[in-house]
């Protein structure tokens, strides 16, 4: 489904070149849950944004279903994200003036679907948020906010979930909920690429990639993946 090959991304910072990614290659197949680990500044988020069609690489290619993502126009990439990609963020990034229900429905702005409301209700129920539907993000606990984030990421039935430290701000109990949800998504045939510091994720992932200074230093995979 997702394949990146020899991807590099350099930034200019204070006159110096920072190699965020340096010749990274990886692939994520349907049903696979890939965990990317590494210290801060190792290029994890850059990798995720690049895979999510949000950040063109300096070199190398990113392919989704065989198509070169960055040869598409910005609007085509937006449509690709709307139809195929879900994002989960460490800071949740909920829209503060929208209710829980409207936050979950936000992706339907990009991909209108008459069944979106029904699906949103189902997701709220699945994540135990039905009673919070009319509440605003500021009125929720951090665990609830991340569950809303997860529900929003799943609304358009994406094929790929990109999660950027989704458990970084959560306690163990909520972290387990999020990780098991991501694992469940993969078990249902979706692909998950998650960057994290947490070792807790290793138990859910089918493979772990270690990034260091923009390079993959080790790569482990469960049997069968």
């Amino acid at each position, binding site marked *: 489904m997702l394949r990146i090959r020899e991807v590099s991304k350099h930034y200019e910072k204070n006159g110096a070149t920072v190699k965020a990614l340096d010749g990274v290659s990886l692939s994520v197949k349907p049903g696979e849950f890939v965990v990317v680990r590494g210290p801060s500044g190792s290029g994890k988020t850059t990798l995720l944004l690049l895979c999510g069609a949000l950040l063109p690489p300096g070199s190398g290619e990113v392919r989704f279903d065989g198509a070169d993502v960055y040869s598409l126009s910005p609007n085509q990439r*937006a449509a*690709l994200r709307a139809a195929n990609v879900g994002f989960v963020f460490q800071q949740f990034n909920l829209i503060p003036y929208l209710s829980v229900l409207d936050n979950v429905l936000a992706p339907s702005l990009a991909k209108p679907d008459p069944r979106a409301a029904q699906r949103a209700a189902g997701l709220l129920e699945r994540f135990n948020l039905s009673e919070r539907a009319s509440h605003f993000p500021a009125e929720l606990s951090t665990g609830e906010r991340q569950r809303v984030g997860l529900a*929003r990421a799943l609304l358009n039935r994406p094929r790929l979930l990109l999660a*950027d430290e989704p458990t970084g701000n959560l306690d163990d109990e909520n972290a387990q909920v999020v990780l098991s949800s991501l694992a469940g998504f993969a078990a249902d045939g979706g692909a998950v690429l998650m960057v994290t510091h947490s070792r807790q994720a290793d138990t859910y992932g089918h493979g772990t990639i270690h990034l260091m200074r923009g390079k993959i230093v080790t790569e482990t995979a469960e049997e069968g993946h």
Partner: protein
Amino acid sequence: MNLWRLVTREIRYQKLNFLLGLLSVAAATGVLVAVLTMLRSHDMRTREILAQKQERTEQEMAKMKDDYRIIMKKLGFNLLILPAAQDLKQYYASGYVTEDMPEEYVNTLAGAGLMTIRHLLPSVERKISWSEQGGLQVILAGTRGEVPLTDRAPKEPMQVAVAEGEVVVGYELARSLKLRAGDSVMLLGQRFTVAGIHGERGTRDDITLWIDLATAQRMLGLQGRLNAILALKCLCAGNELSQIRRNVAAVLPGTQVIEVDSKVITRAEARERAGAVAKTALEAERENRAVIRAELEKFASWLAPVVILGVTLWVGLLTWGNVRQRRREIAVLRAIGISAGQVLKIFLSKALMLGAGGALIGYFAGLAAGTASGELSGGPAGALTLFSLTMLLSVLLVATVLCVLASWIPALMASSQDPAEVLREE
């Protein structure tokens, strides 16, 4: 979920920001609409005032015309009946009559029963050299007062005859010779007592001496002769001079008739002058109103660009602030698949609502303020008179277009923002 819901939810959340924008657009629109309404009110009041003045002038003119008709009816013409041989050019040039005609003409005319003739004053006159006053050139006039018309009841004479042995002196002669009533003067070898001094007339009367007709005829060697018969307040149907001339010519074939000193002419001139004065007053009022309007227009002409520029910059700044504040939200929306065009739409829709809402509030506030400060009667009735759908629609259009234009650059910045850059900051 749709963009409209997203925009309205954000407005509800950022009430103060939107309210600030709305109030500034409303204030700017209100000020402009108030000034325009005052101009409109001024124009309507001007039309009212000028129409009233016009109507009043027309009424006064009509009344004057009526008065004129009545005066004409009462006064008729003043005629001078002269010998047919009198050269009128000579008469107009010298101011006195040189030819003469029989005195019985006046009696003939008085007995003719002409309904057009009302008062007859026979006279003789000559320019003489007043030898007793160093050869001073004066006009000596002899008059016997009014000749009664034989077919009418006697009336108070219009001009009293000068008694024998008395003289009435013209103003300039009396002034230069220091003559006063009661003084005794010699005139062509005969003594006269000054019976009166005429007031200043600015005509040849000021150098005229009036004595009784018989004495004058004798002194001038014109016994039984007259130079002229003055017929006052002559009337005829339609006041046609030609008709009177025909009537007189039928009775006195050896004469000619001219119109003199007609009060009718004076009245007509007065009426024309009054009309001209009224028109001048009307014009002055129109000019005065135009000056006030020009001042209002001048005020509006500098106020409009200042207000428009001010509110455009302010709305632009507010939108820019809103975009800065919503960087992360925009990045997340882009990440979930919202296109750059949709982000642009979100901000421009908000600007549209700001413009339309502000214009609507501003229009009615400005209408109320303009009505209250304007020259027409205030209150709902005044506002209703001054309400203009065209102005409302124009204001709505201009305000929304300006707000959209003011928000264009910040909205473009929002739509072209790199979401990856913002999300990497997490």
